[in-house]
């Protein structure tokens, strides 16, 4: 591959003469990923076409499209897909909005800023398990903090079992998920804000631009590439995320708060039908691929900078 910088090529030529070196350095990463990621992934895709139930080890056979037929016939599927969309849209939307406000608020020095950041970014480092538990406890009908406040404020007469109500139970999980994800957006957007050169703002001020003008005419256009990449990654991540649902409602009542991955988990853990679970996994993979392609096309990712 030709390079534009000849000076660099000459200076580094000696190092590159050892042609095997880059491959040797990468070998451990590539080998371990091949063995424990690529191979299982291929295996998972083939499993989707097999009848494979954990407790029937003598009864494993190639089943063609049987698993997919089962999925299509599954009366739960439309609900699960709707939930997945609701889950992603509401979670990422709120995380983005709040994360953006947080980043704007933090994009200026003040006393105790480091301490403040340590606290506010902490949810990012907490396990999904623990977050699920914390919020499950707060939404508890009898002893939960949230119901205590709602009763105190006179909004409800007595504690509401939010996590046990069909078609309601997904919302407390979304609240927990938003709490979880705001710091990530905050960190990403803050880093982008800090990359904006100050002189742009200064010249805008000389031209008489107010804060709002600066926000919409400079800040947002400038960090748009980061916003795009962050949202892209986040949608994928939230779509794939099942731990809070698993902990807080276990998809219940009656699958009404399941999204696609938590539904797959219930297939794996409860029915042990690995074939159907793998077929659902393949469906997820297809949906994600379609999403990514569309997203990159619509946002004209080439202009959005490289990773």
């Amino acid at each position: 591959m030709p390079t534009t910088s000849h000076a660099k090529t000459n200076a580094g030529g000696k190092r590159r003469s050892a042609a095997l070196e880059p491959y040797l350095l990468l070998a451990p990463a590539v080998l371990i990923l091949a063995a424990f990621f690529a191979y299982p992934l291929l295996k998972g895709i083939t499993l989707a076409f097999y009848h494979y139930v954990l407790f029937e080890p003598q009864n494993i056979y190639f089943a063609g499209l049987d698993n997919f037929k089962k999925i299509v016939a599954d009366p739960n599927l439309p609900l699960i897909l709707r939930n997945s969309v609701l889950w992603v849209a509401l979670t990422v939307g709120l995380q983005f909005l709040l994360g953006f406000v947080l980043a704007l608020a933090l994009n200026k020095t003040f006393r105790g800023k480091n301490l403040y950041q340590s606290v506010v970014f902490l949810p990012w480092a907490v396990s999904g398990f623990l977050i699920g538990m914390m919020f499950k406890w707060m939404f508890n009908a009898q002893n939960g903090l949230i119901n205590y406040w709602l009763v105190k404020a006179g909004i409800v007469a007595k504690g509401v079992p939010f996590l046990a109500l069909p078609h309601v139970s997904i919302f407390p999980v979304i609240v927990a998920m938003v709490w979880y994800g705001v710091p990530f957006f905050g960190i990403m957007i803050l880093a982008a804000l800090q990359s904006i050169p100050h002189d742009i703002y200064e010249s805008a001020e000389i031209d008489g631009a107010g804060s709002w003008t600066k926000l919409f005419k400079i800040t947002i256009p400038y960090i748009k590439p980061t916003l795009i990449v962050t949202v892209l990654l986040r949608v994928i991540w939230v779509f794939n995320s099942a731990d809070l649902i698993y902990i807080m409602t276990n998809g219940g009542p009656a699958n009404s708060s399941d999204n696609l991955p938590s539904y797959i988990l219930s297939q794996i853990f409860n029915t042990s039908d690995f074939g159907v679970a793998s077929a659902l996994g393949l469906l997820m993979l297809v949906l994600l691929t379609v999403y990514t392609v569309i997203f990159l096309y619509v946002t004209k990712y080439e202009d959005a900078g490289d990773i």
Partner: protein
Amino acid sequence: MMTKRLLDRLPEVFRAAALLLFLLFTVVPFYWMFVTSIKTRQEIYSSELTLWPKQFTWANYVDTLHNTQFPLYFANSVLVTVVSSLIVLVISVMGGYSMSRYRFRGKKAVLLVFLGTQMIPTIIILVPLFILFSKMNMLDHLSSLIVTYTVMNIPFCLITMSSFFQRIPVALEEAAFIDGCNKWQTMLLIVLPLMLPAIVATFVFAFTGAWNELFFGIMFINGEAAKTIPIGLNNFVQKFDINWGQMSAGGIMSLIPVMIMFAAVQKYIVSGLTQGAVKG
């Protein structure tokens, strides 16, 4: 003129209000878990909810440490997390150096594959890995978790490392070379010390990822002996009705390592990791 000035000051008011609200929003769940952990059983379940314990007690902590397997879970978590994070670190430094300092055939493909892994739902490999580990007799053993968490963390950490290396001028290495350092000396004495923030940030990333993982653990580990914290605590839930005092105490204790680490490296994470991972 007057209204314009007022409008321009509004962002400052909003800023202060927003900062305060975010602080409350973040702190309340932690606070509530902590307060629960220092209440007596009666007070936790009393119909009269108290925002601060009437009767302060460490009983939940003592109970969790003495009457459950929590200390074992904790030790398992530390072992799995530290070992897998160190492996991730070494592999990522090597691979990241390769990606940033050499031009070679297939480099772009490697980068694309690594980025692609970030998109693939890990749930797809849950079952195949389970089958693989069962054939390798690794189920119910910490090694299965160490391998899994290493694999999960390598792509992101390696890409991050590579972009950190890119920010260190090649000229530095060349100067060291001219001054008579060999490759290893250059690496150990010049490059890695400069990379310290990156190394710390990457380690923390791998650490939190492994420390917090749940589903692979549930899938691979059945016996008490190899349970990590989330899996062990998850068992508190399934067997009995949830003992919220124990759960809160265990939760707070499981948070301590992550909190210490996170506080120590917070400034690296904000300025470092993000700029490494995503160029604005």
